[in-house]
C-alpha cells in the first residue's frame, strides 16, 4: 500500500524528535556529572537509559496508533512516549524532577505515565508485557477496536511474564502486538548467550501467533510490519509478535563503559542509522528537499529548546507532595 508523503515526512520528523530530544538529555545529564560522576547530581539525576539508534522501531509502530490505543513501554521509553505523541515539555520536566513534569516528579525517567495517551512504562524488565495483555482484554470486553502494544527488549523475552503473556493473548485472541526491540544486548549479555533461538520471532509459533523479524533500523520495514499486525489485531484476529533488529549506540545507561561491545561494531551499525538514511531516501525520492529537511531540523530543535527551557524554569514540587497519591 502506498504511503502518503505526509506520513513519510511525519515518520522522519518523529525519529528526529526522539534523536534530538535524547541528545539534549545526554548533554544536560552530563552537565552536573563531570569531572566527578555522581549519579544523583542535578539537573537530571538518577539512571539514564537512552534510545538513540532505535528510533525507527517506536516511530514505525506508533505511527499506526490512536491516542486511546495503549502502549506499555520499558525502562528506555522516551522514544515510545514521543512517538505516541507525548509532550516534550512535560517529559523533560519529569526528567528534571519538576512539579510540572508528566508525573509531577514522582515517576522520573523510567516511570513515565500519561493517562490521556494511554501510555505507561516502568523499570522492571518485561513487567509491562502482561499490562498490555490486560489492556487488550479490556478493549475486547468493552467492544472497542483499540489495540495495545507492548515494547520490550530481547532480554525481556526470556522472563516468564513474556511467555505467560503470549499464551494468554493467544488463547483469548486479544488485540495486542508484541514488539521485541532486539538491540543485541541485555545490558552486557549478548543474545547468543541468553536466548535459545536465533530470533524471538520464532517463539511466536509456540503460541500460535504470527511472528516476523524485521530490520529495526529501517523505519519503513517496521512501519509495514506493524501496520499489518495492528490491522489484524483491530480486526479481532488476535495477537502478533514482531522482532526488530536494532542497535543502541549508547550504553545500557549513561556512564556504561560498554566494554562488552566488540570494536568497530557501533561504526558498522552507524552506517545503517535510520535517520540520515531515511532523510537521504526522502530527498532522493523527491519527497523532501534539502531546504524542507533543514526546516524540519530547525523546528524540532526549537521544540527541544522550548522543552529544556520549560524544565529549567519550572518549580520543584513541595516536599510534602511526596505524601500524596498513595491512595485516591
Amino acid at each position: 500500500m502506498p504511503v502518503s508523503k505526509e506520513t513519510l515526512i511525519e515518520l522522519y520528523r518523529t525519529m528526529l524528535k526522539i534523536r534530538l530530544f535524547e541528545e539534549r538529555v545526554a548533554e544536560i545529564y552530563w552537565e552536573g556529572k563531570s569531572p566527578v560522576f555522581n549519579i544523583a547530581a542535578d539537573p537530571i539525576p538518577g539512571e539514564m537509559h537512552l534510545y538513540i539508534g532505535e528510533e525507527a522501531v517506536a516511530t514505525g509502530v506508533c505511527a499506526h496508533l490512536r491516542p486511546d490505543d495503549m502502549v506499555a513501554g520499558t525502562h528506555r521509553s522516551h522514544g515510545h512516549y514521543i512517538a505516541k505523541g507525548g509532550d516534550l515539555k512535560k517529559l523533560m520536566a519529569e526528567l528534571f524532577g519538576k512539579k510540572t513534569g508528566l508525573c509531577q516528579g514522582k515517576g522520573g525517567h523510567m516511570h513515565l505515565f500519561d493517562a490521556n495517551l494511554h501510555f505507561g512504562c516502568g523499570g522492571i524488565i518485561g513487567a509491562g508485557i502482561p499490562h498490555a495483555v490486560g489492556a487488550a482484554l479490556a478493549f475486547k470486553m468493552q467492544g472497542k477496536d483499540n489495540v495495545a502494544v507492548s515494547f520490550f527488549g530481547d532480554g525481556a523475552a526470556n522472563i516468564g511474564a513474556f511467555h505467560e503473556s503470549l499464551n494468554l493473548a493467544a488463547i483469548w485472541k486479544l488485540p495486542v502486538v508484541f514488539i521485541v526491540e532486539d538491540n543485541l544486548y541485555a545490558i552486557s549479555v549478548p543474545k547468543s548467550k541468553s536466548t535459545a533461538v536465533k530470533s524471538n520471532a520464532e517463539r511466536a509459533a509456540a503460541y500460535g501467533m504470527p511472528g516476523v523479524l524485521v530490520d529495526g533500523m529501517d523505519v519503513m520495514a517496521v512501519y509495514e510490519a506493524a501496520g499489518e499486525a495492528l490491522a489484524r489485531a483491530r480486526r479481532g484476529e488476535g495477537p502478533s509478535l514482531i522482532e526488530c533488529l536494532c542497535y543502541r549506540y549508547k550504553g545500557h545507561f549513561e556512564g556504561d563503559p560498554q566494554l562488552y561491545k566488540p570494536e568497530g561494531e557501533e561504526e558498522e551499525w552507524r552506517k545503517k542509522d535510520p535517520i540520515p538514511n531515511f532523510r537521504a531516501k526522502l530527498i532522493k525520492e523527491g519527497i523532501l528537499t534539502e531546504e524542507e529537511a533543514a526546516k524540519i531540523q530547525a523546528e524540532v530543535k526549537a521544540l527541544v529548546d522550548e522543552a529544556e527551557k520549560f524544565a529549567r524554569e519550572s518549580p520543584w514540587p513541595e516536599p510534602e507532595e511526596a505524601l500524596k497519591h498513595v491512595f485516591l
Partner: protein
Amino acid sequence: MGERIISMYEAIAEAIAQEMERDPRVFVMGEDVGFYGGIFGATTGLWKKFGDERVRDTPISEMGFVGAAVGAALEGMRPIVEVMFVDFTGACFDQILNHMSKIQYMSGGQLKVPVVLMTAIGGGYNDAAQHSQCLYGLFAHLPGLKIVIPSTPYDAKGLMIQAIRDDNPVMYFFHKGLMGLPWMTIIEATWAPVPEEPYTIPFGVADIKREGKDVTIVAVAMMVHRALEAAQKLEKEGISVEVIDLRTLVPLDKEAIINSVKKTHRLLVVDEDYLSYGMSGEIVAIVAENALEYLDAPPKRVAVPDVPIPYSNTLEDFVIPSADRIAQAVRELVG
C-alpha cells in the same frame, strides 16, 4: 421471619455476583474460578450466571494474569483476580510489589488501578509450609495496597462489595478455615446471618466482637475466633476480655485500638502471621506511641514463632496460636 444463614464462601460469591450485576466493568479471573467455582468456593455459581467472558479461567500464569488485571484496570475495567493461595503470590510478586501498588503514585495520581486481588490464607489443616501462610503483614508493609481480612460471613460480604467499589488496589484475604467448606474443620461462626441485599462495610473501622474491661485482644481472621473462645473460658475465671477484630490492616483503625487499651490497660495481639516485623509489632508500636502511660503491663504478642508452618499435627498445633495459648497469655497479663 428467621435470618438467612450462609457460609463465608457463599457470602463472598454473592457479593461478587451482586457487584457484577450492578457494574459491567467488574469481572473475575484466576485459576479454577469458572466451572469449579474457586478452590475455596469464593466464585461459586458465578460462571453459570455470567459465563466465560466475565468469569475467566486462566492458565497457571500468575504473573501473566495478575499483570493483565493491572492492565485491564488501567483501561477502565474493575478486575477481581484470585490467586489461589497467598503462598502462590511469589509467582506474581513483582506485579503486586512494583506495579499494582505503585502505578497510581508513580503517575502522580493520573491513573488508578482498581484491582481486587483475593487470596486464601491460613493453616490448621496440615497443608504445611507452602499452603498455610497468612502473609498479610508482608503486603500491609507495602504502600499503596488496602488490606482486608474478614472473619465472619457478614463482614466478608460487606467488605467485598466495598473492595470492588474502591478505586484503589485491594488485597482481600479469606481464611480457608473460616470459609465454611464442608471439607474443613467446621467452626460454627463460619455459617452466620447475612442480609440478601447488597451492603458495604467501610474500611478502617474495626469491629468490637466482644466487649470487656480487663484485657484488649487485637486480632484478625481465625485468631478472632480463637480469641473469642479464650475469652469465654476466661470469663469463668473472672477475667473480662475485649476482642477487637481489625477487619482491615490498611487502613487501620488506630483509634479503636487506642481507645480500648485506654479502657482495659492491657494489650495482647494475636496473629496467625509470623511474629517478627509484622502486624503484632505494628500494633504494639502504635499503642506504645499513643497510649503507653495507660498500660498497666507490658504488651504481649502471641503469633507464629518465626518458623515456616510445619506439617505434622503436633508441630502445627504448637506454632499456630490456640485458644489455650491465648488464654494463658491473658492470665500472665492480668496476673
